C-alpha cells in the first residue's frame, strides 16, 4: 500500500461528519475533516432539538454543534475549511481535489448533508433574503407583528411555523395535501395554535413584491385550480431537501432523488467510500440517525483500512 496524506478524509462537518471524526480519531486513524463553511450544517438553523436523547430539556442546534465540535477537537480531529471540487476514488489510493490542493487518503466518508430544496417559482430567487427565508431562528425577528407564509407540511415546516408565532401575528401554512406529514406531536401543536391558519391542498405559484421586499404570494388550490393572493411580508420555504453531491460526478451510485446508495455498512458502490447522514438514501433524516450512520461508517472505514494494510 502506497503511503497517503491521510488514512481517512471526512467530507462535511455537520452531526454526521463530526461523529465520524470522533470515532475515527479514537480508532487512531489519521483523519482530516473538511467543512466548506463552519461546522454544523443544517442543524444550525434548527431552533430547538427536543428528540435527541440525553438532553431532556432540548437544546438549540447551534449549542449541539458546539458540543460536538468540542468533543471532536478533544480527540485531536483536524478540521479544515475547504471543500472537495472533484474526486478520483476508484483505486485504493483516493484523490480529492480541494480548493487549493489535492489530498490522498485510503478511505472517504461523505457526510455532506443536504440543503433546503427550492420551489423554482417566480420571485423565489429575487426575494431571497428580502422576505424569502429558510431559517426561522435567523429571520423571524425581522417579521415582528407581521403576517407571513410558510410552505410545507413536514416536521420542519410545522415546527418552524410554531416558532414563527412567537414573533409574527399570523402564519399561513401552505400545504399541498389535505393532511400534514409531520410527526403527531407537532401536528397537535400546530392545530391548536391560534396564530396558524393552514391553507390545505395549495401550492405556492409566485412570490410578489417590490424593491422594498415581499408584499404577497400567489397560491393555487390543486383541487379547484383557483389562484388566490395572500398579503404577507415574509415567506418561509420548507419543502424538503436536496443532497449536496455536486462533486460526485457520477462516480458513486445515487438513487432517483440523488441521495447516495449505501449498504448496511454505510459502504457506497465504491469500496473504501462510505456515506452517512442526510446525504444517503435513508427513510429518516435526524441528528439521531446521522450519528448512528456515522459511527458505523467510521468503524467500517477503520476495518477497511486495516484490511488494506494487511494486518
Amino acid at each position: 500500500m502506497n503511503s497517503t496524506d491521510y488514512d481517512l478524509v471526512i467530507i462535511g462537518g455537520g452531526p454526521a461528519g463530526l461523529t465520524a471524526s470522533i470515532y475515527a480519531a479514537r480508532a487512531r486513524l489519521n483523519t482530516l475533516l473538511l467543512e466548506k463553511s463552519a461546522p454544523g450544517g443544517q442543524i444550525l438553523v434548527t431552533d430547538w432539538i427536543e428528540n435527541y436523547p440525553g438532553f431532556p430539556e432540548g437544546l438549540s442546534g447551534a449549542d449541539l454543534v458546539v458540543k460536538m465540535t468540542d468533543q471532536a477537537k478533544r480527540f485531536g480531529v483536524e478540521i479544515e475549511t475547504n471543500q472537495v471540487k472533484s474526486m478520483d476514488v476508484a483505486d485504493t489510493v483516493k484523490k480529492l481535489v480541494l480548493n487549493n490542493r489535492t489530498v490522498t487518503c485510503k478511505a472517504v466518508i461523505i457526510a455532506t448533508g443536504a440543503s433546503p430544496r427550492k420551489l423554482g417559482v417566480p420571485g423565489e430567487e429575487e426575494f431571497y433574503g428580502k422576505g424569502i427565508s429558510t431559517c426561522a431562528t435567523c429571520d423571524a425577528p425581522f417579521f415582528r407583528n407581521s403576517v407571513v407564509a410558510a410552505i410545507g407540511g413536514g416536521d420542519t415546516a410545522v415546527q418552524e411555523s410554531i416558532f414563527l408565532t412567537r414573533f409574527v401575528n399570523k402564519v399561513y401554512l401552505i400545504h399541498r395535501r389535505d393532511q400534514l406529514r409531520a410527526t403527531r406531536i407537532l401536528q397537535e401543536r400546530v392545530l391548536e395554535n391560534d396564530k396558524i391558519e393552514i391553507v390545505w391542498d395549495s401550492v405556492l405559484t409566485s412570490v410578489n413584491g417590490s424593491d422594498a421586499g415581499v408584499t404577497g404570494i400567489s397560491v393555487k388550490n390543486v383541487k379547484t385550480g383557483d389562484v388566490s393572493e395572500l398579503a404577507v411580508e415574509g415567506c418561509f420555504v420548507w419543502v424538503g431537501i436536496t443532497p449536496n453531491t455536486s462533486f460526485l460526478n457520477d462516480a458513486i451510485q445515487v438513487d432517483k432523488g440523488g441521495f447516495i446508495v449505501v449498504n448496511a455498512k454505510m459502504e457506497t458502490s465504491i469500496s473504501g467510500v462510505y456515506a452517512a447522514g442526510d446525504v444517503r438514501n435513508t427513510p429518516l433524516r435526524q441528528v439521531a440517525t446521522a450519528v448512528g450512520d456515522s459511527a458505523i461508517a467510521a468503524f467500517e472505514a477503520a476495518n477497511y483500512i486495516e484490511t488494506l494494510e494487511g494486518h
Partner: protein
Amino acid sequence: MAENILDVSDSTFDSEVLKSDIPVLVDFWAPWCGPCKAIGPVIEEISKDYEGKVKFFKCNVDDNPVTPGNFGIRAIPTLLIFKGGEKLDQIVGMVDKAKIEETLNKSL
C-alpha cells in the same frame, strides 16, 4: 473577537463604511442567530487574508435597526460589500468560504 473586525453602528456606518477609501465587508448578525455565530470564525479567517486590502465590520441588527432597514435586509447572516460608498454585492445565508472570497475579489 479578532481586532481586525470592528463593530459598526447606525451612527458610524456613514463614516466607517460609505466613506472608506478601500473596499468594506459588513457582516450583519444577531446574537440569536445560530448560523451567524457559526460563520463568524470563517469571516475572521478571511479578514486575516485580506488585511490592508479590505476593511471588515460587524453590525448587530438588534442594536442597529436603521442600517439593515436601509438595505432591505430581512435575513441574516447577510454580508454586504461596499466600494466607494456603493453596495457592490450581497451574500445571504451560510455560504462557502470560497464563495465569500470570490465575491470579495471582485471588489479589489
